[in-house]
C-alpha cells in the first residue's frame, strides 16, 4: 500500500477511538451533570440504574431512541434533519487536532496521540470549527418554522459573534508568547509548571467566560432559555434528533475543557520527571491520564458554575461581551506586547 494509504488507515483507527471516547465522555458528563446538580440541591440524583446509577446515561439514550420523532408539518425537512448532524458532527470534528498525549515510538516510527496534533493551524482550526457550529443551532431554529425556535437561533448567532471576538483576541496573547498555532507546540512550551495561565491570567479569564458563552452553557444559555423560549432552538426536536443536540452540547463542553487545558494548563505535560523514557507506552498513558484528569476537572467546573449562576438577561449579555470582555481582551494584547518589548 502506498504511504498515503497507511496514513489514512492510522487516522481512521484513531478516529474510531476518539469518537467512542467523546460519545462516552458526553454520556458520563450527562450523568455527572445530573448527579452534581442533585447534590447541590440537597437531592441524590439518579441512583437506580446500575451501581450508583452509573448506567443511567444508557437508559437515557434508549429512551431517546424509543421516542416518537415528531417533525412539524411546516418545517423545512432537509435543514431540520441536517441541523443536529451539523451540531454533533462539528463537536466531534474539533477533536481531530487535539493531542491527548505526546507520542509512542514503535520501531522508529512516532505515533502521535491524536489524529493531527502537529498540524500548524490547530488553534485556528478549533476556532473556525466552533464558529461553524453555530450554523447547527441557527438552522435548527430557522427550519423548525416556530417563532421560539427562531428566537433561540438568532440569539445564538448574536451571542456567538459577540463572544467569538473576545475569545479569539484573548488567545492572541498566548500566540504572542508561544509564537505558534500548533497545539502540540503550545503544550511543549509549557513544560514543568510554566503554564500559560500564570503568564496570561487576564487572557485566561476572558477565554474562560467566552467559552461558557460559546458552548451555550449557563449563565449564557440564552438560545435555550426555557422560561422565555420554551426550549429555544430545540423546541421542535424530539427523539434522537434532540439527543444529538444534547450530546453535542456535552461534547462541546468537553472540547472547551480540553481547549482550556491545552492552551492554559499545560495539556498533557507532566510537571515532574517520573522517570519514564520519552516515547514509551507507559509515559504516554500517564500523560493521557493527566490530561484527562484536568479535562474532567474543567467539565465539573462547567457543571458547578451552571448550578450556581443564574442566566444573564439579553442586554447584560451583550454589554458584557462588547463593553467589558472585548476592551479587556484588547488591553491584554497591549499589556502582553509591552511585556514582550521590555523583557524579551
Amino acid at each position, binding site marked *: 500500500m502506498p504511504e498515503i494509504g497507511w496514513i489514512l488507515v492510522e487516522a481512521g483507527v484513531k478516529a474510531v477511538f476518539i469518537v467512542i471516547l467523546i460519545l462516552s465522555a458526553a454520556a458520563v458528563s450527562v450523568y455527572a451533570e445530573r448527579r452534581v446538580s442533585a447534590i447541590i440541591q440537597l*437531592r441524590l440524583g439518579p441512583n437506580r440504574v446500575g451501581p450508583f446509577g452509573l448506567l443511567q446515561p444508557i437508559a437515557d439514550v434508549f429512551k431517546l431512541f424509543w421516542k416518537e420523532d415528531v417533525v412539524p408539518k411546516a418545517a423545512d425537512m432537509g435543514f431540520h434533519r441536517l441541523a443536529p448532524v451539523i451540531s454533533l458532527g462539528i463537536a466531534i470534528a474539533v477533536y481531530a487536532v487535539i493531542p491527548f498525549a505526546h507520542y509512542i515510538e514503535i520501531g522508529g516510527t512516532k505515533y502521535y496521540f491524536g489524529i493531527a496534533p502537529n498540524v500548524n493551524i490547530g488553534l485556528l482550526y478549533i476556532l473556525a470549527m466552533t464558529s461553524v457550529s453555530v450554523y447547527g443551532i441557527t438552522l435548527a431554529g430557522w427550519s423548525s418554522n416556530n417563532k421560539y425556535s427562531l428566537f433561540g437561533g438568532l440569539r445564538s448567532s448574536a451571542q456567538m459573534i459577540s463572544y467569538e471576538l473576545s475569545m479569539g483576541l484573548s488567545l492572541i496573547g498566548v500566540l504572542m508568547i508561544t509564537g505558534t498555532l500548533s497545539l502540540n507546540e503550545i503544550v511543549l512550551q509549557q513544560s514543568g509548571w510554566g503554564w500559560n495561565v500564570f503568564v496570561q491570567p487576564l487572557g485566561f479569564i476572558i477565554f474562560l467566560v467566552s467559552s461558557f458563552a460559546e458552548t451555550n452553557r449557563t449563565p449564557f444559555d440564552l438560545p435555550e432559555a426555557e422560561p422565555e423560549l420554551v426550549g429555544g432552538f430545540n423546541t421542535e426536536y424530539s427523539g434522537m434528533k434532540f439527543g444529538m443536540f444534547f450530546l453535542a452540547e456535552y461534547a462541546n463542553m468537553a472540547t472547551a475543557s480540553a481547549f482550556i487545558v491545552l492552551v492554559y494548563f499545560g495539556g498533557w505535560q507532566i510537571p515532574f520527571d517520573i522517570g519514564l523514557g520519552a516515547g514509551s507506552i507507559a509515559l504516554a498513558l500517564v500523560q493521557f491520564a493527566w490530561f484527562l484528569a484536568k479535562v474532567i476537572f474543567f467539565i465539573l467546573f462547567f457543571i458547578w458554575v451552571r448550578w*450556581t*449562576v443564574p442566566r444573564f438577561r439579553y442586554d447584560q449579555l451583550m454589554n458584557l461581551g462588547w463593553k467589558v470582555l472585548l476592551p479587556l481582551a484588547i488591553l491584554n494584547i497591549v499589556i502582553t506586547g509591552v511585556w514582550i518589548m521590555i523583557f524579551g
Partner: protein
Amino acid sequence: MNNTKNTEAERLNFMEKLYLPEIAKGLGLTMKYMFKPKFTRQYPEERFEPTGSYRGRPVLVDTTGGERCVACGLCSRVCPALAIEVQASETEREKERYPVKFEINMLRCIFCGFCEEVCPEEAIVMSKEYDIVFTSQEEAILGKEDLLVPEEQLQDRLEYLAEYK
C-alpha cells in the same frame, strides 16, 4: 429631581460590580451545599408513614356487623368529582338499608374528603393509602369488596375524626 443613584446596579460597590468575586462567593456556597446531608427519601424502601390527619384513598368502614353504610347517598351527592355510585337495598338487620352496589372511581376522586365529612354514619373515611396503582380504567373503579376495610385498621383516622370533626 429623581435620584438616579437608586437602581440596584448603582447601589453595588466596586467589588460587587467586578462580578467575579461574587461568582466565586456563589461557587463557595454551592460547594458547601454539596456536602450537606440530603433530604431525599428513597421511596419504595423508605416509605412515608402518614398520621391520622392524612387524606388517602376513601374506604368503607367494615365492622363485625357488616358495613356501617346505610346507602343514604349523601356522599354520592356531595362528591364534587362525581366519583361515587351507591345503590340501596333492604336487609333483615337492625339498620334496614344497605348498599348493594358501592363504587368509587379512583380516576375521578380528588381526595377532598367531602364524602367522609357528610356521612351521617361515619361509614366512609379517608385511609392512609397513597400509592394507588392501576393498569386499566376498569381496574380503577373500586367495588365494595375493594373498599371495605376492617375498623381496626382505621383507628387512627377514626380517633382523629372524633377529636376534630
